[in-house]
């Protein structure tokens, strides 16, 4: 499975546009609550809707089984998060869900066959949302500035409130470290 041709560049442009609309500087961390407001999305913690015990039970059965979900109710968009997640992981989950909204992905359905629910998903759209979510949190100009400062994934993760895995992934796959190195020579 691969992303459509030009998707990564388009994601960078879109992330830049949204950050511009929010009046953010190139090096600023993305405030997800402000982006939610900007997109007209309501963020809701899962334990505001159901007992926290139920979320904990699912987590005990399988770690990371449920992270987040987007519902559209009478034209309003709600992103429901799992309160058991760390702040960094929560940021990835929320950015992933926002990506679905920004990319205008149709809602997939959880379907039931003889009482057994099955998750339906469009693997291409999930991959796009994951890639775009990462770009929203850590766009290339932000990474480039950090790399020029000599910051690595650890500093980027701490500054931007994302997981080390996310910072490492974006830092390595965008090639900013090599680019910054070349410029400094």
């Amino acid at each position, binding site marked *: 499975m691969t992303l459509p041709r030009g998707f990564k560049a388009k994601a960078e442009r879109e992330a830049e546009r949204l950050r511009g609309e929010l009046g953010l500087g190139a090096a600023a961390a993305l405030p997800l609550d402000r982006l939610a407001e900007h997109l007209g999305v309501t963020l809701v913690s899962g334990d505001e809707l159901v007992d926290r015990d139920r979320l904990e039970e699912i987590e005990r059965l399988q770690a990371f*089984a449920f*992270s987040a*979900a*987007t519902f559209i*109710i*009478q034209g309003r968009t709600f992103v429901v998060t799992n309160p058991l997640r760390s702040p960094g992981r929560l940021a990835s989950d929320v950015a992933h869900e926002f990506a679905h909204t920004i990319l205008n992905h149709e809602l997939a359905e*959880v*379907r039931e066959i003889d009482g057994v629910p*099955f998750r339906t998903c469009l693997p291409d759209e999930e991959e796009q949302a994951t890639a775009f979510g990462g770009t929203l949190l850590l766009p290339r100009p932000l990474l480039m500035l950090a790399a020029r400062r000599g910051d690595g994934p650890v500093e980027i993760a701490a500054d931007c409130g994302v997981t080390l895995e996310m910072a490492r992934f974006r830092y390595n796959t965008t090639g900013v470290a090599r680019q910054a190195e070349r410029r400094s020579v």
Partner: protein
Amino acid sequence: MTPAVDDGREPRGGDVERLDVSQLGRLVRERRGAQSLRQAAADAGVSFSTMSRVEGGAQPDLASFTALCAWLGMPPSRFFSPVTERPQQPLEQAIAHISADPALTTEASAAISSVLKEMYATLAKANPLAKPVVACHLRAASVMRPGVPQRLGSLLDDMNAALVARVAKEGAR
């Protein structure tokens, strides 16, 4: 193409092992045989990790489940109805009557049954297998351990209901 596990027999009360979704893993393992996990996953059209986890007893997402059923040569419905409790279908009743008719030879009843099966398969309206529980974008594990899908299904259903109630309440203000 390698033969599927399904031998094509119609399920009949008592003499066919009951299948359910938890047995998917065992059947997939049997069907794979000596084939490598990677090759079998490619043949079935699912990812390596999905194949591996399903063999370990986890439930795949709907697209993977459908692909695995096709690879096994089994209709998805066979994983749900307990055979011993399944009422006799009209086609099975008709074939039983024809087989028992003394006016027909074995060959004649087999020929009529075959025509009936073919016509039934073509003309009978397919049963809707699935109804949506809830529509949402879901960030969750793509393969779930036993017990998780049911709990997650009802959790999403209740979250949806709570949000509907919230919107209605806000609208009434």
